[in-house]
């Protein structure tokens, strides 16, 4: 559904190759594409408008560098402007006040306030060595106060004892009292979710702020938010003085345009990104990553990090030894497939990698999906241990047995064998090109789905890698060789439905 901005701009600028400066007409044409890209990423319309205006101004008359295409040049200008607008760098909490420093969390229902309260408390306790008390003022949602209490025990942070029936402002007073008396450095106030148009609840929030005098008031926003982000940001910042924003669910596959809307409307820094349900899923906000994501250029940095996390070192070393001997059997193939699954399957990969239009299309058309991985795994499971180490044992009769056992067809089994063969060949080439020394590079830097399959191929730099026959797998126009940003694992195409 989404095309990356570079792909969009490719078309606009094709006719322009080799010209010197960006003319106003060219830039305007490009900006129409930028506009659509931003809207698809859920950046709010008014923010898109003002962004486009200012970037157009910057871009017109700009010299196109010799080494890049006009499209790349514009992408760079847009990307830099985005990073700029999102805020130069991570900004920390400012808790330099007479203790207890109060942090108040506000936001819509279900945006992640309670979870983020616990995450920040954990961070302050562990890294900041602060003594933190948490209190839930959510008397609306059933079991909301219990939720925070449970999280408190999980991270070993104190929570204010629950007094049934007490109202938010009174709870805030009691919390403040307790924090002062018991010498806490930080008091975190988790509040109930509220709609910005619910005036009664907005008044309640203001009353709490008046009592608690928070050092930090953080608006917690879901990264999946659409156009409504501007309304939310506007109303909340009008009614309490926000000091920052937390963007949750950045572990999802949303393009995260809400980040830009929030920044533009509130003018406040985005202090953290929530990256998981677990309480260690909190990171300082990184503008350049998010800019890339908004533009559909792929969150390459995150991908590389996740790859590094989910690829177990021992596995990689064992594989390297095998590769050195020129051996690569079905067990290895399976290990690679499982690794792909650990990383969130094809869907997650596809959404994070740059230039994955083809795969997206294939997936949208039903040609490739996560089930492919499951099916391949089922086939390998149905082989005997001997067959796995020596796939050449698989004669017609055995293939039929394997197909039956895995609920697939002999054709599928053949495809898998072919894929294995091609990967083994790719291995041999890698070995010739420098063997296991390149393994580090294979595991990430070059990226690409090829790289993800244990790095088989990523490090080939697109040179020696067997290219997918285009058309053969129903993946039209896969970029060929050279600096193609994306390669399918060799033979993977054979697994796509026709």
């Amino acid at each position: 559904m989404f095309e990356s901005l570079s792909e969009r701009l490719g078309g606009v600028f094709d006719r322009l190759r080799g010209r010197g400066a960006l003319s106003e007409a060219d830039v305007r044409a490009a900006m129409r594409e930028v506009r659509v890209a931003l809207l698809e990423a859920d950046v709010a319309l008014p923010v898109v408008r003002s962004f486009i205006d200012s970037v157009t101004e910057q871009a017109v008359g700009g010299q196109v560098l010799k080494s890049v295409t006009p499209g790349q040049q514009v992408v760079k200008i847009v990307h830099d402007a985005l990073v700029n607008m999102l805020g130069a760098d991570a900004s920390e909490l400012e808790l330099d006040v007479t203790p207890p420093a109060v942090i108040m969390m506000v936001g819509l229902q279900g945006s992640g306030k309670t979870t983020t309260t616990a995450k920040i408390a954990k961070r302050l306790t562990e890294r900041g060595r602060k003594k933190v008390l948490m209190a839930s003022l959510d008397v609306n949602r059933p079991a909301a106060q219990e939720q925070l209490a449970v999280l408190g025990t999980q991270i070993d942070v104190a929570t204010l004892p629950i007094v049934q029936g007490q109202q938010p402002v009174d709870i805030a007073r009691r919390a403040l009292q307790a924090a002062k008396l018991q010498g806490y450095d930080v008091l975190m106030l988790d509040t109930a979710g509220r709609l910005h148009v619910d005036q009664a609840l907005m008044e309640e929030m203001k009353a709490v702020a008046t009592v608690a005098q928070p050092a930090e008031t953080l608006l917690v926003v879901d990264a999946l938010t659409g156009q409504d982000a501007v309304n939310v940001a506007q109303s909340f910042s009008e009614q309490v003085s926000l000091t920052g924003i937390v963007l949750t669910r950045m572990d999802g596959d949303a393009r995260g345009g809400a980040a830009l809307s929030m920044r533009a409307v509130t003018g406040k820094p985005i202090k953290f990104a929530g990256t998981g349900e677990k309480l260690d899923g909190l990171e300082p906000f990184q503008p350049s990553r998010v800019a890339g994501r908004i533009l559909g250029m792929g969150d390459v940095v995150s991908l590389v990090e996740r790859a590094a996390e989910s690829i177990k070192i021992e596995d990689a070393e064992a594989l390297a030894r095998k590769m050195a001997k020129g051996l690569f059997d079905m067990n290895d193939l399976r290990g690679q497939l499982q690794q792909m699954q650990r990383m969130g399957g094809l869907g997650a990969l596809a959404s994070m990698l740059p230039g994955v239009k083809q795969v997206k299309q294939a997936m949208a058309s039903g040609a490739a999906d996560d089930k492919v991985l499951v099916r391949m795994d089922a086939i390998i499971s149905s082989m005997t241990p001997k067959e796995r180490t020596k796939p050449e044992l698989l004669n017609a009769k055995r293939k039929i047995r394997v197909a039956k056992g895995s609920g697939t067809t002999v054709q599928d089994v053949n495809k898998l064998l072919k894929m294995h063969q091609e990967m083994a060949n790719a291995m041999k080439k890698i070995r010739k090109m420098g063997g296991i020394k390149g393994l580090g590079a294979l595991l990430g830097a070059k990226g690409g789905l090829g790289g993800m399959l244990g790095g088989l191929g990523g490090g080939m730099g697109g040179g020696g890698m067997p290219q997918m026959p285009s058309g053969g797998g129903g993946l039209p126009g896969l970029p060929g060789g050279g600096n193609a940003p994306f390669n399918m694992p060799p033979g993977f195409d054979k697994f796509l439905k026709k």
Partner: protein
Amino acid sequence: MNDTVPWRDRLLGGFKRTSEKLGENLTGLFTKATLDADTLDEIEEALIASDLGPSTAARVRERLEGERFERGLDVMAVREIVAQEIAKILAPVAIPLEVIAFPRPQVILVIGVNGSGKTTTIAKLAHLLTEQDYQVMLVAGDTFRAAAIGQLKVWADRVGVPIIMGKEGGDAAGLVFEGVKKGTEIGTDVLIVDTAGRLQNKAGLMDELAKIRRVLGRLNPEAPHNVVLVLDATTGQNALNQIEIFKEMAGVTGLVMTKLDGTARGGVLVAAAEKFGLPIHAIGIGETIDDLRPFDPQEVARAIAGVAPLKERTA
């Protein structure tokens, strides 16, 4: 409420400004004509601001482009035209959730991303069905999130329906199996299963859903009869990814959209109706058990087009 005039109305292609412009563009003319480009631009932008997404907004614009309308339409009339066009897209998917399973119970699995409103929607649905004299039972299948079980328990007590609960951190699929067994034994009409919120790009968690489905099928091959995906109206274009992947991995049979009581208009439903054609059963317009409404395509279309909000606010 005065100081919370939606920013959209104040600043940008909001309906107010749009409409005023539309008004200027259209008044004083007298015969039938197509809408002019400026008017169409304004309509398209207003639709984008309602979360239809750029391509669906462009398609609605195209549908209006060729048609001829009375000249001199006022603002409301133009909004109505837009609403009618949207209602045409939404009408085919307005399909209520009905209790028809035989043998009983009808098993309804409720799924969605984190915080979308699953648990609250279950409470509302249980209330609605109870009022219609169906026997309802709940299964606290979210064994992951802190106090999620307690949350559903509070709702079950308020609505007055039995609930099957396990331990926090326990095996959700096992509990669900238990639930169906109990529900069948006591002969309940409807069994509603809550699940932990999960983002659609987490393969492991999606597999877990598939497992819950399989387990349900073991006792009754027809179960789950409904797999309801709960979408949050504040969500933007990612809702389409959610539908696509949940549909594929968990066999979604219908949608409910929550939080339409805010300023989010849920325009992504228009794109969803075009792209997936999945039934939309109901909408959520508040936090209490009475705040579930059947999905009325006219009403939602008019909200999207800015004719009338779904919930009147008393300031």
